[in-house]
C-alpha cells in the first residue's frame, strides 16, 4: 500500500504540491488526473526519487521513502512523460545498459531482456538500433526499461502522450497485461476515457491538492448532482417536449434530431411515468435510458468548482 501524507513541494513561492494526502491500495491501477501544472508530475517525480519533497511523507508498506530513498530503486519503476533514448545503441544494448545500471547479474540479463521485450511486443526489434524505432515503439521500449528491476510499483507519466490511436491501443493492451502481474500501477493521463477503462481508482488533483479520490463510479455519483437521461424517438417529438416541461424534476432539456436529452433529479418512478405518458401520447419511443457519466465533464466540473472555491476564499 502507498500512503502519501501531507506532501508539499515548493519552488520558490509556488506550491507545486500543497499538502497532498492519498492512499493507493496494493495491486490497484490508480489514475492520476489533473490539468497541466496541477502537480501530478511533481508528485510522481518525488515518488520516483527524482525530486526531494519539501515536507511530508510517502509510505510504501509502512516505510517512508522520503527518509529512506534507497527503497525507491528497489520498489519503483518510472516512465517519465518526456524521455530520450540512446540512438546509437541497439534495443538489446539499451536494455542491457539499464540492467547493468541496476546491477542485475550478467547471466540473468539475456532471459530478462527477452521476456520484457516480449511483454511490450518488441522481440522482433531486439537487434534494431533504437534510432530506427517509431515513437510508439520507443515508448514501449521505455516501458520495458521501467520494468527491468521488477518493481512492485510502476509509475507511468502520460504513457500514451504523442501516440497515434493504433499505438495507444497497443500501449493500453500492454498495461492490461501488466495489471495481471499484480503490480500497483499509477498512471497520469489527459486521455480520460482511457483511464476510465483501465483504472480501478482515480485521484483528481488541482493546484497541488487532491480534489477527489476513489473508484470512478463513486466519484461520478458524488460529482454529478443530476442524472442525465436521453430519449430517442421516431416522431411526435414536440409532444414529448410538452410532457417533459410539466415535470419540475426535469430541466436543461436539449433537443437533437430524433433525440432529447435532459437532466433529472427525481426517482425511477417518475421516470417510468414520463415514459408511460409519452407512449400514451403516441410518441414513438425507440430508446429511453440513463447516460453513463462522462469522466471528462466531471473532471472539468470538479476542477472549476475547486477554482471557484479558492477564489471565494481569497476574496
Amino acid at each position: 500500500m502507498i500512503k502519501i501524507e501531507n506532501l508539499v513541494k515548493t519552488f520558490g513561492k509556488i506550491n507545486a504540491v500543497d499538502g497532498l494526502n492519498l492512499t493507493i491500495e496494493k495491486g490497484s491501477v490508480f489514475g492520476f488526473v489533473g490539468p497541466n501544472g496541477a502537480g501530478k508530475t511533481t508528485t510522481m517525480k518525488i515518488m520516483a526519487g527524482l525530486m526531494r519533497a519539501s515536507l511530508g511523507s510517502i509510505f510504501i508498506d509502512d516505510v517512508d521513502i522520503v527518509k529512506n530513498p534507497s527503497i525507491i530503486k528497489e520498489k519503483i519503476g518510472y516512465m517519465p512523460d518526456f524521455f530520450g533514448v540512446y540512438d546509437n545503441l541497439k534495443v538489446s544494448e539499451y536494455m542491457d545498459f539499464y540492467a547493468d545500471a541496476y546491477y542485475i547479474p550478467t547471466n540473468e540479463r539475456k532471459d530478462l531482456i527477452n521476456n520484457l521485450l516480449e511483454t511490450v511486443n518488441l522481440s522482433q526489434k531486439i537487434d534494431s538500433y533504437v534510432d530506427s524505432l517509431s515513437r510508439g515503439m520507443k515508448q514501449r521500449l521505455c516501458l520495458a526499461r521501467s520494468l527491468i528491476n521488477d518493481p512492485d510499483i510502476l509509475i507511468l507519466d502520460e504513457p500514451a502522450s504523442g501516440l497515434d490511436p493504433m499505438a495507444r491501443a497497443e500501449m493500453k493492451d500492454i498495461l492490461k497485461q501488466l495489471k495481471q502481474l499484480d503490480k500497483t500501477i499509477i498512471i497520469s493521463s489527459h486521455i480520460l476515457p482511457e483511464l476510465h477503462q483501465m483504472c480501478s481508482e482515480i485521484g483528481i488533483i488541482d493546484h497541488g491538492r487532491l480534489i477527489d479520490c476513489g473508484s470512478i463510479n463513486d466519484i461520478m455519483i458524488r460529482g454529478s448532482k443530476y442524472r442525465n437521461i436521453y430519449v430517442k424517438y421516431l416522431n411526435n417529438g414536440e409532444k414529448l417536449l410538452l410532457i417533459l416541461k410539466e415535470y419540475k424534476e426535469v430541466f436543461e432539456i436539449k433537443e437533437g434530431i430524433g433525440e432529447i436529452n435532459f437532466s433529472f433529479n427525481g426517482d425511477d418512478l417518475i421516470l417510468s411515468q414520463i415514459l408511460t405518458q409519452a407512449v400514451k401520447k403516441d410518441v414513438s419511443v425507440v430508446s429511453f435510458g440513463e447516460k453513463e457519466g462522462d469522466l471528462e465533464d466531471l473532471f472539468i466540473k470538479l476542477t472549476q468548482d475547486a477554482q471557484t472555491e479558492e477564489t471565494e476564499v481569497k476574496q
Partner: protein
Amino acid sequence: MKNPVFKREINTMFRSFRTFIAIGAYGLGMLGITALILFDVILDNSRFNGFDPKVTIELFCCMLALQTMVVFLAVPAFSASAISGERERQTFDLMLLTKMSTSDIIWGKLLSSLLFVFIMITAALPVYSVVFYYGGVSIPDLILVYFFDLTYAASIGSISIFFSSLFKRTVISTVLSYLTLVFYPIIITVLTLLIYAGDYNITDSSWLFKIIMSVNPIAACLSIIAYFSGTDIMMFLFGRGNAENGIKIWQMAIFFNIIISCFFAKLSASIIDPIGKNKYR
C-alpha cells in the same frame, strides 16, 4: 571496469565517426609537425655541426607541448557535454532512477573522457618512435609524459563535467569550461608575476612559490620541459635562479591535478544528486 556508464560510453564512442576523425586528425597533426621540426632542426644541425642528441630532447619537448595543447582543446569538447548532453537528450533522469550512485555516473563519464584522451595520444605513439630512433629520450620519460598529460586531462575533464552538471545547456558549459581553463592560468601567471616581480633569484625552493607554480598548468608544462632539458624552470625561463630543488613543480602539479579531479568529481556528484542530503528542500 564495472561502471555501466563507462562501458556504455566506450561502446558508443567507437561507433561515432567523430572519434575516428579526432584521433586521425591528431595523429596526422603530430606527424606533420614532427616532420617539419625534423627537417628544420635535426637535418640543419647534422649538416653543419654533426648530430646533437639534445635536439631530440627539443623535439620531444615540442611534441609534449603540442600533446598538452591537444589535451587542453579536446577534453572540454568531450566532457562539457557529459551531463548537460544527457539532460538535453532527456536520458539523465532515467540514469538517476537506476541503482548507480551519482558518483558512479560522474566517474564513468570522467574515465571515458580519459580513455578517449589516452587512446588519442597513444595513436600518436609511432610518431614518438622518431625520438627514440635518435636517442636522448627513454621510455620511462615517455610514460611520465603520458601520466602527466592524463592527470592534466583528468583535472580539465572534472572541471568541464562540473560545469556540465551545473548548467542545463551544453553550449554554456562548454563556453564556461574553456573560459575558465584559459583565464585561470593567465590569472595565476599574473599573480605570480606580481608577487615575484623582478625576483629572479628564487633559490630557497620556497614552498609558496612551488605551490603557486604547480597550480598553473603552463608553469607545470614548462617545468617538465625544463626537467627534460636537464635544467630548472627559472633557469629555463630567465637563464638564472633555481627554484626546483627537491620536489619538482611538475611533480606537485600531478598531485594537484589528482586532487582537483577528485574534488570536482565529488562536487559534480553532489550537484546532480536529486535527493542528496544538502539539496534545497
